[in-house]
């Protein structure tokens, strides 16, 4: 368990998502990173059912239920800017029971899949973000294992990110600033993924809506 930074890698000009991913992974392999299987993070959106909404007409909050192959026995449920719940995988069954309160948004499933690389203490995951059948973007996750305090190792992470992302190195994730000197938890990773997915969804939604 370490500190993780999740960022988005823009698709290189004149190249497909697949090609960009290949470019990145080749760079990593050149660095000497070791391939260690695959990874998968998925996210499903639920909105609160109309019947349970208050009479004041408040807008229903969105809830995201996520899974991460890094935490195979866990299931995460998050609200935007809200609390994050880590539960065991039986939570999915519970969500089915809670149909009356939370309804699954149709075709909202978004996930990222890719290869997991180990480079000394760093764990790098480069994945393709897909929503339905189409690839929408590239996610890059870097985890530094030996440290649990984000502020202590951010510069190290940044330096490492720069080594293979080059100019696309992201800024410090928002979750790092939330709690200064606090122990980093897996939920923070999921929050970053949620934000990433939301960003990608919004980016893509505009043109999609235009087409419709």
């Amino acid at each position, binding site marked *: 368990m370490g500190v993780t930074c999740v960022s988005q890698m823009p698709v290189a000009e004149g190249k497909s998502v697949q090609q960009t991913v290949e470019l990145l992974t080749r760079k990593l392999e050149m660095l000497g990173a070791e391939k260690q299987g695959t990874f998968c993070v998925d996210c499903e959106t639920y909105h609160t059912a109309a019947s349970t909404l208050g009479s004041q007409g408040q807008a229903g909050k969105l809830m995201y239920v996520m899974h991460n192959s890094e*935490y195979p*026995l*866990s299931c995460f449920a998050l609200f935007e800017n809200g609390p994050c719940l880590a539960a*065991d995988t*039986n939570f999915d069954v519970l969500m089915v029971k809670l149909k009356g309160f939370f309804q699954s948004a149709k075709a909202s499933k978004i996930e990222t899949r890719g290869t997991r690389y180990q480079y000394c203490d760093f764990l790098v995951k480069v994945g393709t973000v897909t929503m339905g059948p189409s690839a929408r973007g590239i996610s890059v996750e870097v985890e530094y294992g030996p440290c649990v305090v984000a502020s202590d190792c951010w510069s190290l992470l940044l330096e490492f990110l720069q080594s293979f992302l080059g100019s696309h190195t992201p800024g410090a994730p928002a979750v790092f600033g939330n709690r200064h000197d606090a122990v980093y*938890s897996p939920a923070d990773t999921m929050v970053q993924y949620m934000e990433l997915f939301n960003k990608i969804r919004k980016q893509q939604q505009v043109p999609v809506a235009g087409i419709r």
Partner: protein
Amino acid sequence: MSGVRAVRISIESACEKQVQEVGLDGTETYLQPLSMSQNLARLAQRIDFSQGSGSEEEEAAGADGDAQDWAGAGSSADQDDEEGLVKFQPSLWPWDSVRNNLRSALTEMCVLYDVLSIVRDKKFMTLDPVSQDALPPKQNPQTLQLISKKKSLAGAAQILLKGAERLAKSVTENQENKLQRDFNSELLRLRQHWKLRKVGDKILGDLSYRSAGSLFPHHGTFEVIKNTDIDLDKKIPEDYCPLDVQIPSDLEGSAYIKVSIQKQAPDIGDLGTVNLFKRPLPKSKPGSPHWQTKLEAAQNVLLCKEIFAQLSREAVQIKSQIPHIVVKNQIISQPFPSLQLSISLCHSSNDKKSQKSATEKQSPEDHLYVLEHNLHLLIREFHKQTLSSIMMPHPASAPFGHKRMRLSGPQAFDKNEINSIQSSEGLLEKIIKQAKHIFLRSRTAATIDSLASRIEDPQIQAHWSNINDVYESSVKVLITSQGYEQICKSIQLQLNIGVEQIRVVHRDGRVITLSHQEQELQDFLLSQMSQHQVHAVQQLAKVMGWQVLSFSNHVGLGPIESIGNASAITVASPNGDYAISVRNGPESGSKIMVQFPRNQCKDIPKSDVLQDSKWNHLRGPFKEVQWNKMEGRNFVYKMELLMSALSPCLL
């Protein structure tokens, strides 16, 4: 005649008993009255038969008097009176009865007279002295007394016998009751330590570790027997216990797991014939009853069997480069090349035969008790694991498995953490790892010790840590010179001995990994020792005020060492006149050269270039020091002497 005599009749009181004596206090002692026969005898003695028969009258009077006497005190004075009257008036009718009586008395007297007269002649009749007849009546009461005494004694004896019988009965009953009570109290005590249940009229107990999480299929039941039918008359043996237990025959005796490491593989013919040398049964604790020790021994046998069964199952299942061999009661594995670990189940029953053979074939003690103990620990851990996985209470929504597994979801454990929880290393793998570690540790210790005893000059000290893990232990190795411990502290090695390899952490942070081969460690230590000497010179130079001109741990010049590299140092004296150069190799040993000032060397040919006298202060050629001829107990001391000899006298 009676009419003439005025008869005065004295009336005596009817004192039946004659007074024999009157005591001073007035008490009278009586004589016993004579009985009838005694009286007669007395009277008869009085008769003077020698007198001839007198007149009738006399005779009658005598008879009368006799009769009077004979009648005793019972006849009253009236009778005398009447007698007189009868004689006086014979025809008086009212006295007829008296007359008749008298007549009959007379008749009888006549008969008596006749008899007596006949007796007197002693022809037809004789009289025995009457006094002799008095004896039988005297004896009679004695016999009677005897008989009655006998009878009463018999009665008393009978009562006593009856009582005794009753007592004996009650005593035996008591004893039986006591035995019964003892059995119950023993059963209660047994119940406190062992699981018991009643099946039919039997009491069965449970020896198995099933309740502790064991999955061994042996039923492990024992039977509780009441042991009350002993002979009460005989002395009860001291270790008698009314409760006895019967354990299954295959759990009898004593058993243990023998773990040993042998250097070379034995012949295949020897496999599976591990000597069952018997260990003395553990002495029962003074307070505990004998069934406790019996049951504990049986339970131990059961546990040993379970351990062995588990190990042999794993030995067959686990695929390893060199397959584990399971033969009879032995499991053989090869942790390192030419080294074999054998784990065997030694079970000796109590019969004489096996004991005898055991004492004959006492095997050498290569038993690793630590590993045996650890095997027991491991199986218990295994039990605990199976127990905790099914342990209730358990959240209804959570998946089955032990608690950490259950928490791994909500606590978002990552893959590595989950893997560490799920480590499904078997008993055999663990014990082999432990055996490897133990072997590696002992071999390291032996290597260090042999080096320390072989090489004296740089001294090796090994500080073993007391507390270590089953898979890792550490030792701190210091290389010092005697007498210079304070200044020569450069070589401090921390050896972390693992399962397969030894990690050496140098003082400066270098980490070197050595394999299990002892030669590697030995070579490494030798090269460190040689470096130590050069380091020591450097330290000494600092203390002595000499200047270090050059220093190298690994010299690239000179003869090549087979182990490591030679190291070298050159130091110059404080005023710069002299220089000492030391080269020390692990194999070639040390070579010490001294450089003299040019002006002290006579054999140097005058150079054409160095004409000026100032060049004489340049140092000249090196000369080797015959180091073994130097005085001093060790290298550093010799070096100190050399340095001080070459230093200028400051005074």
